[in-house]
């Protein structure tokens, strides 16, 4: 049973903060350049990844019993029979 390792939230959060700072700097000189647009596009991409990560985390944490039963399906509180 392989569980995917979630990227530590701080890492991606740091990345969002950093990319915003970079974008603000890149646009300081020339607000209509390709570099400026590319920098803000990176902000969008990283923000979307961060939001996906948050959603995934929320889903796995939403039901403690479900999370437990995934790993321990044979226990009393988790056993289900079709009939």
């Amino acid at each position, binding site marked *: 049973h*392989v569980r995917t390792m979630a990227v530590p939230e701080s890492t*991606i*959060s740091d990345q969002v903060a950093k990319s915003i700072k970079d*974008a603000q700097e890149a646009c300081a000189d020339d607000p209509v*350049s390709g570099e400026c647009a590319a*920098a803000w*596009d990176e902000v969008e991409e990283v*923000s979307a990844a961060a939001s996906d990560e948050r959603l995934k985390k929320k889903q796995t944490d939403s039901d403690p019993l479900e999370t437990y039963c995934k790993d321990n399906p044979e226990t009393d509180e988790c056993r289900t029979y079709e009939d």
Partner: protein
Amino acid sequence: MAICTVYTSHSLNSTCSIPTPTKTYLGFNQKQVIFFTTSKKSNRRSSIYSSEISCSAEAKTVVIGLAADSGCGKSTFMRRLTSVFGGAAEPPKGGNPDSNTLISDTTTVICLDDYHSLDRTGRKVNGVTALDPKANDFDLMYEQVKAIKDGTPVQKPIYNHVSGLLDPPELINPPKILVIEGLHPMYDARVRDLLDFSIYLDISNEVKFAWKIQRDMAERGHSLESIKASIEARKPDFDAYIDPQKQYADAVIEVLPTQLIPDDNEGKVLRVRLIMKEGVKYFNPVYLFDEGSTIDWIPCGRKLTCSYPGIKFSYGPDSYYGNEVSVLEMDGQFDRLDELIYVESHLSNISTKFYGEVTQQMLKHADFPGSSNGTGLFQTIVGLKIRDLFEQLIADKAAAPLQATKA
């Protein structure tokens, strides 16, 4: 020698498969199936026997394109769509944890970001956004989508959204239905011609802004200014390369601010329009009460409980980029999802298999974003229309009787 029977109903993508005592499939969908049998039953087959059988791949994979900007609800739409076909969509098992692909029994969804030719650093160095065609490899996109449509597995690259790098490829087997979702499914004419159906999610700027505030405000570093700046900076490329694709879409879902509340900018109450192209084969647009008429309908009253601001439906013929279309519009939101059955019973051509299927699908996913307004309703309806289109396509293509779906 080994005796093989060639079945015609096992896989939709190839019209043959070879059942043997110990079967080893090298992918269901290759045009040529190589099989091996080892001796287990009798000593007639004492050595490993291999042979080649070519099949006419008549029933091909159906390809659907979904275009939308990042953060505009593509994934919710995908979850609703795969749910119509039954079974949950999950990432490929055991592969790259950051894979963007979703696989269910019938459907495989691939994200077109995987065809980025430039990674995050590459785009930054060249000063181009991901929206720019220069950052995407349309030749590879065309080749691989065509290969899958013809029943050949491909090794598709993976664009890692967390690291911003292009990861080693993953194997994609031809499914019954392939959905390609991303920024440019209809940009390249060759890829566009491969699509059996296309959808464009058109989110107005006001709503996009409101949604991104909801998504990003909690994130450290973000402010109203940074969200606005990000939308503004991407807008020229969006208008140049993404937006024009909507003229090619068979169905467009337009999401606009409500007209029921004056000066609303929360983006919670929405006016959603489903624009359906006329004359598309296997696709009959949905209508309200009377096909081809122009109708405004406020269902609120004795039979449907609505609180402020209520619900308003509109339906009528229109013209969209020079094409004849039918437009169904819903403004407002439902308070009680089960009362949706009242609305469903007045819609025609929704391609349900039983009375109440739209409502049932919506109730199944009451927790998804958009379940109380037109986005969820129209996404579900489009999902049913795609199922209908898929079944008609398969029935037409297969000369031999094929069981298109499990009962």
